[in-house]
C-alpha cells in the first residue's frame, strides 16, 4: 500500500483551475519532489496535502485512510515554509518545542526532544536566541527542527532553500538529504530549481500547468526527458523539428530545409513520425568548416566564455543552435560545422497544442 496517495486532485482559485485531476503516490521513507516553474500547481498540491487548501475534487489518502476532511492541526504533518515562519516572539528552544507543548507532552520530555533536534541541526548553542538574531541558514534549520520535533508522519517543504544564498543553499540541501535519509522520513518537497531538486530527491514529479509531465528518478528525468517541457527544464537548449525515416538498416532524422539528415541509434517512435530532436549544448560538436566532416553548417554569431568552457550561438539553416566546447573557441563570424553526438540525441514526440 502506498504511504501517501493523491487521487484525481482538482483545485482552483476563483475561476482559474490550477490542478487538473492529479494523481501521485509517495512511498514510505521516500523524498518526492514537485518540480516546476511558478504557477504550475506544485505549491497548490502541497497546500492540499497539508489541509490549508480545500481541493475542488479528488481525495488525499494517508496509509489508506482518507484525510481530506481532517483539520490541518490534526494531520500531524511537519511543514517547512519558504519564509521559515518562525515565531518571532519565542526563542529557538520554544519554537522547536511548540508542537510538543500543544500535544501536552511533559516538560522533561519536551526538553529532551528539543535538544535532540537542535543537536541534529547543529544549533544547540543557539537555544536561547530569538529568530531575528539568527542568520538565514540558521533560521532554516530551526524551521526544520521545529517541523521534525513532532515526529511528523509526513514532512512538507515549500521551497525551503529559496531565501538562502547560493553557497548556503548547496550546503543546506546536503544537510536536509542527510537528515531525511538517516531518520527515514517520508517527505514532499516543492522547488523550482532543477539542480536542488535532483540532489535531494528519490523521485521527482515535473509539473506543468496543473499536470505531472513526468515522474521518475532524477537520473531518468535527466537522461531521458519525456517531453520538450521537461527537456528544456533539464538543460536541453537545441530543439529541431523533423521526420523520423527508416532507410534500410539505419534510422535517420531528416529535416526538409537544407536536406540535412542525422543518424539515430534507436527509437521506439514509429517510422515517418514528426518528431523533435533535442540536444544539450555539449551534445553538439563544433568543427572548423574546413574539416569536411558531415554535419550542420553554420556561422558563429557570438562566442562567450563560461569558465568551464565556451558557449557558441551558431546561426544555421535550422535556426540558432547553441554549442559548447571545452577548450577551443570559435570567434564570431567564423564558419563552422556542427556535428550532433548521436549518443546525446533525444527524440521527443510532437505535442498537439
Amino acid at each position, binding site marked *: 500500500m502506498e504511504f501517501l496517495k493523491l487521487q484525481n486532485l482538482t483545485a482552483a482559485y476563483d475561476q482559474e483551475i490550477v490542478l487538473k485531476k492529479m494523481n501521485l503516490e509517495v512511498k514510505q521513507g521516500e523524498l518526492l519532489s514537485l518540480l516546476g516553474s511558478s504557477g504550475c500547481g506544485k505549491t497548490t498540491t502541497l497546500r492540499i496535502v497539508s489541509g490549508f487548501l480545500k481541493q475542488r475534487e479528488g481525495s488525499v489518502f494517508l496509509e489508506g485512510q482518507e484525510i481530506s476532511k481532517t*483539520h490541518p*492541526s490534526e494531520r500531524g*504533518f511537519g*511543514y517547512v*515554509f519558504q519564509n521559515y515562519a*518562525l*515565531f518571532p516572539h519565542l526563542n529557538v528552544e520554544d519554537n522547536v518545542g511548540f*508542537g510538543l507543548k500543544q500535544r501536552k507532552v511533559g516538560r522533561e520530555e519536551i526538553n529532551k526532544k528539543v535538544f535532540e533536534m537542535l543537536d541534529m541541526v547543529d544549533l544547540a548553542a543557539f537555544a536561547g536566541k530569538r529568530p531575528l538574531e539568527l542568520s538565514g541558514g540558521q533560521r532554516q534549520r530551526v524551521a526544520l527542527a521545529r517541523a521534525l520535533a*513532532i515526529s511528523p508522519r509526513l514532512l512538507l517543504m515549500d521551497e525551503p532553500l529559496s531565501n538562502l544564498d547560493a553557497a548556503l543553499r548547496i550546503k543546506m540541501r546536503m544537510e536536509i538529504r542527510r537528515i531525511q535519509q538517516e531518520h527515514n522520513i517520508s517527505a514532499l518537497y516543492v522547488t523550482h530549481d532543477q539542480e536542488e531538486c535532483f540532489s535531494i530527491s528519490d523521485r521527482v514529479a515535473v509539473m506543468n500547468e496543473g499536470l505531472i509531465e513526468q515522474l521518475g528518478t532524477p537520473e531518468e528525468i535527466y537522461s531521458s526527458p519525456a517531453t520538450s517541457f521537461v527537456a528544456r527544464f533539464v538543460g536541453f537548449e537545441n530543439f529541431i523539428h523533423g521526420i523520423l525515416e527508416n532507410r534500410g538498416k539505419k534510422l535517420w532524422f531528416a529535416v526538409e530545409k537544407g536536406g540535412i539528415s542525422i543518424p539515430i541509434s534507436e527509437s521506439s517512435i514509429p517510422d515517418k513520425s514528426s518528431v523533435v530532436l533535442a540536444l544539450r549544448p555539449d551534445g553538439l560538436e563544433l568543427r572548423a568548416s574546413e574539416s569536411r566532416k558531415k554535419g550542420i553548417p553554420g556561422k558563429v554569431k557570438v562566442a562567450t566564455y563560461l569558465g568551464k568552457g565556451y558557449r557558441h550561438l551558431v546561426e544555421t539553416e535550422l535556426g540558432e543552435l547553441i554549442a559548447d566546447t571545452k577548450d577551443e573557441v570559435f570567434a564570431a563570424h567564423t564558419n563552422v560545422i556542427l556535428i550532433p553526438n548521436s549518443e546525446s540525441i533525444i527524440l521527443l514526440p510532437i505535442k498537439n497544442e
Partner: protein
Amino acid sequence: MKRSGLVLIVSILLVYIFLIGPLVIIGFSGFNESEFLDFPPKVYSFRWFFRIFESDMFVSAFQTSLLISVLGATGALLVGLPAAYSLSRTRAKWRRSVLSLFMSPVIVPGVVLGFALLKHVVIALDIEVWTGMVMGHMLIMLPYVIRVIVSSLSNVPIEIEEAAVSLGCSNTHAFLIVVLPNIRSGILAACLLAFITSLNDGPVTIFLTGPGVTTLPIQMLSYVEYYFDPTVSALSVLLMLLTVAIMIVIESTMGLSFFTKK
C-alpha cells in the same frame, strides 16, 4: 551630487515655520509672566500653569476627557481588533475596499457625525449624556484603531499562523498565542493614537456635551469666549507635550516608518 538647491532649503524652512512657528509662540506665551502679549516675554513664570490646576473647571474637564477616552478606546479595541484581523486576512476585495473607504480619516466630517449622533441617537433614543459621549468617541477612534492594527498585522505573515496550526493549534488558539503577542506594540500604538485623537477632538464632542460632561478642548473653547489670559496657552503647552510624549512612545515601539508611510 547635491540635490537640494536653494528652493528646497527655503521650502523646508517655510514648512518648519508654518508647522512649528505657532507652537513656539504659544509656548513662549504660556511661560509669560505678563497677561499681554510681548514677544519675547520679559519675565518668564509658571504662573499660568498653576492657574490651570487651581481652576476646578479645567481639572474636572480633563478628568472627564480622560475617562471618556479610556472607555472609548477600550470599546474601539474590542470591536476593532477582530474586525482588523478579518480585514487583513480576507481575500474578498470588495469587502476590503468598502471598509477601507470608511477607514479614511476625513470621510465623515466631524460636525456631521456629531450632529447625527446628537439628533438621531442621543435624543431619539433618549440616551444619557455620558453614554452618548463615550459612543461618539468610540466612533472617532474606531477607524484609527482598525487602520493601525491592520498595518501591524501586515507584518505578521499568515504562514506563522499556519505553522502554529500545522503543529497542532486550533485556529483561535493560533491567533491568541502566535498572532496576538506579535502585534502587541501595534495594539498599544493603536490605543495611544486613538486616545490622543479622542482627547483632542472638538467637532464631534461639541454636540454631545451636556450638563457636567465637558471635555478639555470644549472647556478651552468656552473659556476663551470670556477670558483672554495665557491660561489656555499654558494648557495648550501641556496638551501638546502629552501628545508629543505619546507620539514618541509610538515611534519607538512601531518604528520611525510608522508616520512616514503615508
